[in-house]
């Protein structure tokens, strides 16, 4: 009954209805609009947060990218600078190498160039990369710096091959490019008649620090190419093992053995004039080099050689040839031989 009268009173008395309608509409409007604004703001914030997350991921990927370029080497032929390096993906993300920059650091030729690359490396991948760029005025004597650029914008400097203490000792305190193994210095007796000569006792020979006077002998030295630029050395026929005796103070007495080619069974192959083939010393690989001839094989035929003197002698190993595209010469003076 009370409820009925309230409703009846409400409908009969129209005063305040407009206020109520207006209020309801306003509240409704504000609610709808603020809800829209709120939801829109939330959606925009979500998009922005997502973009920030992606941005952080991009940066994280860049930080996690770790490419190392080891055993780097620069060689020059004309204006062409060849860069070699072992590229390793030591990071946790795949990487793409897109550029190599090379700089000539020589004071009067500070030039640079680059090469575009497309190398894709998964984590753990190792790739030996050889790239050639043109730098006008580049010379073998110049020093070079280079670095790779990845698709994420990281730069990877090329690290030169390390020269450790052992190698320095082997190349006479770092002077020169060829090291000699003192533990593998042998001599052989040479037997046979023209043009067939053999080294005996093959292949072991005898230690080269004590040899016999007036015997036809040959020496074997073990040489290793330690050129910092990793170029191959070619020894030509002028290379000679030279023995010096302090027999007479005012006049040096000598004996010498020129370089020869020997096959795998101890036979001397280069006996005729001009038959000598240059001996190759690749970087880092020990190689046996034989000295047996009294004659330079580019000028004369092979000749047997022996020492006519006895006593202590200083041995100089005089090497000639080419390194890369340049001429090469080095003297290794550190062996002593006693002749009896």
């Amino acid at each position, binding site marked *: 009954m009370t409820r009925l009268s309230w409703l009846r009173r409400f409908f009969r008395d*129209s*005063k305040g*209805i*407009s*206020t109520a*309608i*207006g209020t309801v*509409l*306003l509240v409704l*409007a*504000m609610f*709808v*609009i603020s809800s*829209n*604004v709120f939801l*829109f*703001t939330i959606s*925009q*914030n979500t*998009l*922005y947060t997502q*973009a*920030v997350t*992606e*941005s952080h991921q*991009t940066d994280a990927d*860049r930080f996690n990218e770790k490419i190392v370029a080891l055993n780097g080497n620069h060689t020059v032929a004309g204006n062409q600078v060849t860069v070699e390096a072992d590229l390793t993906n030591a990071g946790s993300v795949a990487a793409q190498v*897109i*550029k190599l*920059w090379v700089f000539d650091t020589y004071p009067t030729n500070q030039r*640079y160039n*680059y090469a*575009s690359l497309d190398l894709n490396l998964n984590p753990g991948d190792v790739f030996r990369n050889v790239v050639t760029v043109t730098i006008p005025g580049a010379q073998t004597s110049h020093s070079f710096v280079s670095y790779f*650029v990845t*698709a*994420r*914008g*990281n*730069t990877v400097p090329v690290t030169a091959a390390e020269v450790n203490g052992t190698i320095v000792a082997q190349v006479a305190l770092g002077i020169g490019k060829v090291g000699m193994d003192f533990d593998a210095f042998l001599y052989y007796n040479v037997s046979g008649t023209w043009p067939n000569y053999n080294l005996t006792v093959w292949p072991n020979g005898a230690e080269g620090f004590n040899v016999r006077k007036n015997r036809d002998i040959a020496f074997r030295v073990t040489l290793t190419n330690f050129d910092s630029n990793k170029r191959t050395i070619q020894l030509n026929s002028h290379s000679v093992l030279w023995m010096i005796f302090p027999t007479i103070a005012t006049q040096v007495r000598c004996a010498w053995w020129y370089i020869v080619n020997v096959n795998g069974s101890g036979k001397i192959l280069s006996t005729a004039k001009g038959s000598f083939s240059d001996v190759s010393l690749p970087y880092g690989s020990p190689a046996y080099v034989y000295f047996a001839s009294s004659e330079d094989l580019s000028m004369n035929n092979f000749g047997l050689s022996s020492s006519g003197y006895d006593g202590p002698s200083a041995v100089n190993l005089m090497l000639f040839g080419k390194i890369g595209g340049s001429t090469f010469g080095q003297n290794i003076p550190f062996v002593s031989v006693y002749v009896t």
Partner: protein
Amino acid sequence: MYIGRTQMLVRRISRVILNKRAESYVISAVILAGVAIAMGFAVLAWAQSRSSDYGSQLSETMNAETAKLKERLAVEYIVYDESTPPPKIWIYLLNWGTIDDVGVQTVHIRKDTWHLTTSTFTLSFFNGTLIPDEDLDIGEEGYILISSIDLDDGGYYYVRVVTVRGAVFDSTFVA
């Protein structure tokens, strides 16, 4: 019985129609309600308009900020050359970000208190041809060439590249 009810209904309607006493109240109520509704809709429209403006501004800002976040420029190399006048600076750039159309707005070069801001430069591909759209797309490389700039030989300089979207990328070089 039915006749009685019909008569009562007719009598009531006639009373409502013929009774003029409540007319002004009804009219005023209708007018007030109409005004209130009209005001309500006006406020709704205004608020809707304001919120729409706010929404579009927010959307624009967010899009710009998001695009800026995606920009990444790496400086591959900077070289200063004074051997052939006028002295020039080459800034080699790589777009390694995730968005195209990265244009360079200004370049700042600074050393100690000395500072130079320039927008006068060209953007070219590494092969020397000018980039037609003057921006770098994803993975694209190009260089900025700034001419007629005299720097101290051997000086250590800071470089700041500011993009059109407002992202900032810093690097250094020795002149």
